[in-house]
């Protein structure tokens, strides 16, 4: 290191000679700080998304590397949120990548105290059969005045406010065709 290099490694020199007279920025940087890069810089892709918590609808940029979410930040272009996220939105990387996420179908048999694993396709078949059985058990063709009802009281559903419009559409459509009417979500609560 020459004299000049030695001088420039000294923060006070940089503060007095450079563009940071208050010593709150580049003048106070250490070599390690200078080398730090945001993890977003290494992302393969940035994907447009929307925060999944409340209904303000803050825009999110999802940073992806090697098929994994590596960071989620606010999108400054949004006229709603202008890049900001609240504590929940800021924590949403933990929401989608954390160990709390279940990855396997779980099954609790009647009268059991335990969960067991179940194959996804087997579980889907079991649910499909149970839906039709419950539908038949609670079926009502007519009311007491003979007016058509064409419905089942055997099935109920709750949820949708955290789901996509397209998902709610299919849920309502399928249940309606099944004759299931007790279809509800958080908007009632």
């Amino acid at each position, binding site marked *: 290191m020459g004299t000049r290099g030695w001088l420039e490694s000294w923060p006070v020199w940089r503060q007095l000679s450079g563009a940071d007279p208050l010593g709150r920025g580049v003048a106070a940087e250490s070599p390690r700080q200078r080398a730090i890069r945001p993890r977003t810089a290494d992302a393969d892709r940035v994907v447009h998304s929307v925060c999944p918590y409340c209904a303000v609808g803050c825009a999110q940029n999802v940073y992806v590397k090697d098929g994994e979410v590596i960071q989620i930040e606010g999108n400054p272009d949004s006229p709603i949120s202008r890049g900001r996220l609240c504590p929940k939105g800021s924590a949403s990387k933990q929401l989608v990548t954390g160990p709390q996420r279940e990855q396997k179908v*779980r099954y609790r048999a*009647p009268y059991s105290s335990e969960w067991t694993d179940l194959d996804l396709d087997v579980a889907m078949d079991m649910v499909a059969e149970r839906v039709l059985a419950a539908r038949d058990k609670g079926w009502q063709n007519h009311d007491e*005045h003979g007016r058509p009802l064409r419905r089942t*009281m055997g099935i109920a559903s709750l*949820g949708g406010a955290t789901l996509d419009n397209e998902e*709610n559409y299919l849920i309502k459509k399928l249940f309606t065709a099944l004759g299931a009417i*007790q279809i509800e979500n*958080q908007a009632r609560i």
Partner: protein
Amino acid sequence: MGSNMAEAHPVGFQWVMEAKEKGATVIHVDPRFTRTSALCDLHVPLRAGSDICFLGGVVNYIFEHDLVFRDYVAPYTNASFIVNEDFTDTEDLDGLFSGWDERRTGYDRSSWQYEHEGEGGTLAEPSTREHATGHSCGASGPRLEGGSGPIRRDPTLEHPRCVYQLLKRHFARYRPEMVAEVCGTPVEQFLKVCAAWTSASGRERTAAVVYAVGWTQHTSGAQLIRTAAIIQLLLGNIGRPGGGIMAMRGHASIQGSTDIPTLFNLLPGYLPMPTAETGSDLATYLAAVKADRQKGFWRLADAYMVSLLKEYFGERASAENDFGFDWLPRTSGDHGTYRSVMDMVDGKVSGYFLLGQNPAVGSAHGRLQRLGLANLDWLVVRDLTMIESATFFGDAPEIATGEIVPSRCKTEVFFFPAAAHTEKEGSFTQTQRMLQWRDKAVAPKGDQRSELWFFYHLGRKIKALVADSGDERDEPLRALWWDYAVVGDEPQAEDVLRRINGYDERSGRLLDGYVELKADGTTSCGCWIYSGVFAGGINQAARRTPGSAKDPYALAWGWVWPANRRILYNRAAADPDGRPWSQAKACVWWDEERGEWIGHDVPDFEKSKAPSYVAPPDAVGPDALSGDDPFIMQADGKGWLMAPNGLEDGPFPTHYEPHESPVANALYAQQANPTRRVYPRPDNPSNPAPSEGHREVFPFVLTTARLTEHHTAGAMSRTLPYLSELQPALCVEVSPELARLRDLEHLGWAHVITSRAAIEARVVVTDRMAPLVVQREVVHQVWMPYHFGARGLVTGDAVNDLFGVALDPNVFIQETKAATCDIRPGRRPRGPQLSELLARYRARAGISSETGTARDATPPGGGRDGEQEA
């Protein structure tokens, strides 16, 4: 009011702060001093559940001080309409309106109707018909026969039976002193609110109202919001920039799940579900949705409904088979979530789906919820993480009390791990009706799947199972159009959105908007208000052009229903002649040269209909809208100061005490909303009303709210390290005065008790919960956040266990923002001792199933005189 926006919707609150910096006065009216209050110009306390009296006081102030924005109110609202001479107000019937039917505890609305010119006078609605009930109207203006006819009017607003005069008289006793007596709000502070609010009115200025579930979760929730609407109409603050009433909704697509409903009473686009009464055929159904002689775009409901049926059943829907209408199931009254849960307890429901929702924590009366879950044949839970509603058989509080025994609990539970918002594409609709598209970032892992995947494949499997059944019951499943585009095994959300937008069935072209919909089966459309989201064949919800000085509404960011209009009813942002009320408040206006409406926003009005246009007397539907009818969905084109139809509990809002209140109604003999829905059963006890005595057992007011760092029932926040660290424990906030009264120690334990439950929490003694003087007595209020449960990184008792089930009669939302309670130092007892404690409390308060559930509390015969004689 009814919102703690800085904490519950912090990123939205930046705009409130920006308005404040530009000179706006920001007022927070709330029982508790919150971080929102700390940032406002004024915090004004009130007793939880007394909001209608407070707002009614503002209405009264507007009339007393002659502050009505007449140039707006006279042409744009129904102020000048004359009402049936049989109408009798709550002032004369001590808290009931005319039409009260004690037998069915509901109203006949015929006396609430307008008078018409010429022969016939009133066109009375046969309002006892089930289809006219409030819950079937969704967000739409209700049906109104004669809305396009010659309604008798008095433009001077002097006629004693015009809406203006009736409204003035209705709220005449809601004076500042009455507000102080009922709400506990000091007169001086109340008057400050009135002065500030009413000054933001007129040509140059507007005021906006923000609310959240602090308003909806009441037995008079819908009327509460209507009171705010009346104020905003009187001040000319609806349909104008900086005006309106903003609902701060709490879930990413709770608006979308209302528009495209997973709700029992609605079909997509606020079309009502057919009922047993209206469901005999399509024509009968449509006659219940829209009147023949009414104005506005609901008159075209046949086009919306037929297009929906075309999407549902494709080519199987034709004019010959009523477009498959008969395949739809019919409702008959209340099928809301609370009714269903009681039916689960009673063994009437076999299977239950929970889709990203955790009722064991998030719904009122957690014990009832869990007992319902424990009495099913099977339960499907789809969520990101294990939630209390899936694990109830192992960790419900009822295990400790012996009410749920795993070895005797038959419920078969399927847990399906869900894909997260980054793992699927699709659209959310946020709180201001804006659809925003999300792209897929990464693939879900293991068995994680989207709801789209789950329901698409469940439908496919069910269709296969019934393909050859021969059973007529299965015909709608066989006819169901289910050929959505699939890549790999994932159905394509964009294809579903295209079908929601709708097609011209003859050409296969995507529609540009709902005005293209036809009732003859040549168009299909999954949700008419969303038609246009794929205008020009482009996914408009995926647009991401930021706003600019030239484009203040950022019209190319996302897509807002309907037709990308950002401010609903913005025709009212111009004066009757079509000119902006002022340059500062210009939004859309009539351009005489071009002969059309133009402006910063997309006009919410027929583009070339001149402000001076007068509709011919025999016109109906949109053709009947005149140039000064800004409220184009309403059956008469006007903003409703009085609602002749659509509400169960009266044409005007009226102060009733909450279902559970420590005080008697100071305004009327009628204590609580007479039409509220109550469920008197042993497992749903209510704390006593004041007239039933034992007030000392549950002397305090209980209310709840959110924390910034947690989300609703906690599944998406109690499981995350960051958020759990920030808010690690359940707490209960009490005033220093209440702490002294009950020996509560700051940061020590206390338990809160109602007739349903006792739960424990750490005590926070704080001035934020100031006691109020109500009817010359001190009323203490207790506040708790409701996010905690048995699972996650941080745990706590479920606050919603404290509440019972009593509902608003219009929308069937439960009252969880005001109840009565007791609070005692120390932790709650465990196991059987907990049940014994609750039994002792119920015995002390003399509680039976019927306690607190009386609905008509007026003296026999009704009216003040009757009361005096009694």
